């Protein structure tokens, strides 16, 4: 049997003493795209932060296995090195460092971890040009400081480009559609779709169904109050779009129907 790419079991996580995730279960097999949908405050971004290794979140119970490895034992940078990539909802601006400079540090850190030779400037720039072309990113953008002065669309495209460059096995996209107009959304989705492969899996976190018209998921999960309350195929997203999240709120009775 194939090892799941990502297996989250009964995950509980808190921030500053407040429990946000209250028992999340999720299994992603290689090649699958899972979408996590949920209203504001349901824990979507917390889930992505916990997978990526944000230290502000304390995991109080449960486990996250990545290709059989205990992810919670690894630092954020080690998680990136074994193949987890988080595309940020709000990519951080870093004035004073060009994007290329920053990415050379990233690529070589990952190569070093994987026991590969570090790339010299020439090979690195070739790789960058190659990957930029593959996701339709203007290479000139990469001479600018990290995310500084980028438009909303440019930031998200740069995230997808970074994902292509770092070549992860699992891509976690945290509300990649937020702040994008429809044209920018299409370009970003196209970039993600090009990265789909039988080995690579995705967790696409989104508030709106719109993104899923362009990145078509294999599974859709509804996250409410820190738990996945409903799972289904892509048609579930359409139900959500029609009925809103309210339809999935627990009914308040004791019949465990929620």
């Amino acid at each position, binding site marked *: 049997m194939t090892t799941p790419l990502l297996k989250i079991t009964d995950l509980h996580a808190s921030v500053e003493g407040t429990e946000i995730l209250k028992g999340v279960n999720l299994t992603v097999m290689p090649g699958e795209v899972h979408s996590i949908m949920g209203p504001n405050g349901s824990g979507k971004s917390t889930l992505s932060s916990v997978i*990526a*290794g*944000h*230290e*502000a979140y304390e995991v109080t119970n449960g486990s996250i296995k990545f290709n059989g490895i205990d992810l919670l034992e690894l*630092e*954020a*940078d080690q*998680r*990136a*090195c074994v193949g987890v*990539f*988080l595309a*940020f909802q709000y*990519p*951080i601006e*870093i*004035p*004073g*460092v060009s994007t*290329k*400079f*920053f*990415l*050379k*540090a*990233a*690529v*070589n*850190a*990952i190569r070093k*971890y994987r026991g590969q030779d570090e790339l010299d*400037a020439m090979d*690195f*720039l070739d790789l960058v040009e190659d990957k930029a072309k593959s996701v339709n990113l203007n290479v000139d953008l990469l001479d600018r*400081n990290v995310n500084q002065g980028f438009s909303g669309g440019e930031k998200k495209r740069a995230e997808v480009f*970074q994902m292509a460059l*770092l070549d992860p096995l699992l891509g976690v996209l945290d509300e990649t559609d937020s702040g994008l107009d429809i044209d920018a959304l299409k370009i970003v989705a196209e970039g993600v779709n090009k990265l789909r492969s039988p080995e690579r899996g995705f967790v696409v976190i989104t508030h709106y169904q719109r993104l899923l018209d362009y990145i078509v998921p294999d599974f859709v999960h509804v996250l409410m109050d820190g738990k996945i309350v409903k799972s289904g195929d892509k048609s579930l997203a359409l139900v959500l779009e029609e009925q809103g999240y309210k339809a999935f709120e627990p009914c308040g009775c004791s019949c465990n129907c929620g």
Partner: protein
Amino acid sequence: MTTTVNNSVFEHLHKQEDWLYSNVSELSNVSFDACKDVDVSVISKYDIATQNPLVVFVNGVFQENQSRLGDGLSINSDNLGEVYCRSNSQIPRGESDRLSITSNQHKTIHILQIISGNNPVAVFGNVYVHACQGETISIAETHIAITNQDHLFMPCTEILAEKDSCVTIVRSIRGSKSAYHLGGLHVTQHAASKVQTHTITLGGKRVRNEVYAYLDGENCESNFDGMYMLGKDQLVDNHLRVEHNEPNCDSREFYKGVLDENAKSVFTGRIYVKEDAQQTDAKQTNQNILLSDDAQATSRPQLEIYADDVACTHGATTGEIDDEAMLYLQTRGIPADAARTLLIYAFLNESLDELADDAFRSVLVDELLTNLPGGEFIQSLYL
């Protein structure tokens, strides 16, 4: 030409409010020598922009053979600034060969001040910059003390920026970590002039950088920036007084630095707004990152305002590295130590980013990286 300095002036300076955090009383015990033999062989190493005009002084003595003067550059001419006299600077002013800069200077003029000798020397440096109406002048000053003596350098640069002129000056203090540097930039601006100063401190044991600026015309723009990266037993004291004497002027003070080991920084920024200087827009910012528990940053932003329709702000931060930025770098596979180094470098390099001249910038980045713990990692990223 090494002037005799009355040492006693340094003994009690730190008892005054303006010098509270910078004790230079040790200087009163140093016996300064006249420096007889001047070694000119080191000069070429610091000639970093060989296409640009170069003016070299060693221990305050003009080196004609090593310099490249151009139009508008003269040594010991009759031009004498009066700007210094307006300030109440306590740093003594004395004799040295004196450079005057006039007329348009689109190529950055490199002024190289080397302080050297096997015994302590006290040296003055005098530069007078006069931009007439509509002229543009760009200057880079490199101040380097060689050898680890208690050398004392007291550079005084005066700038007169007439109407619609534009003056840029980048002063970098490099070299010995045991020399004293007590420097002044004295600026007078007429209407609609633009002056930008950038003081970069990467060397020295006790460094005092004074900026006295007088905005005497309407619609002036002034940027007074500074950056520092210091380590063991080093101190930098950036001391500014910016006087808004006419309406509608904008001034910015932006100083940022990183302190390692037991390094100390002091920032005192006084913005003075005269009663008629309405619509003044003045801002001062001092940001520090401390890398060690023993490092210390003191910020004293001060506003003295006599007009009622102005926008004046000040801000000071002293902190550590931003957690969100750390996470971002780590999620790209960069280990925590390297991520921290990269962010510190970014913090300082932002201040150098705006320097227009590549040759000067890259030299400063290199020197910055030799001071920065983990700097060799940053060097490995060069493309």
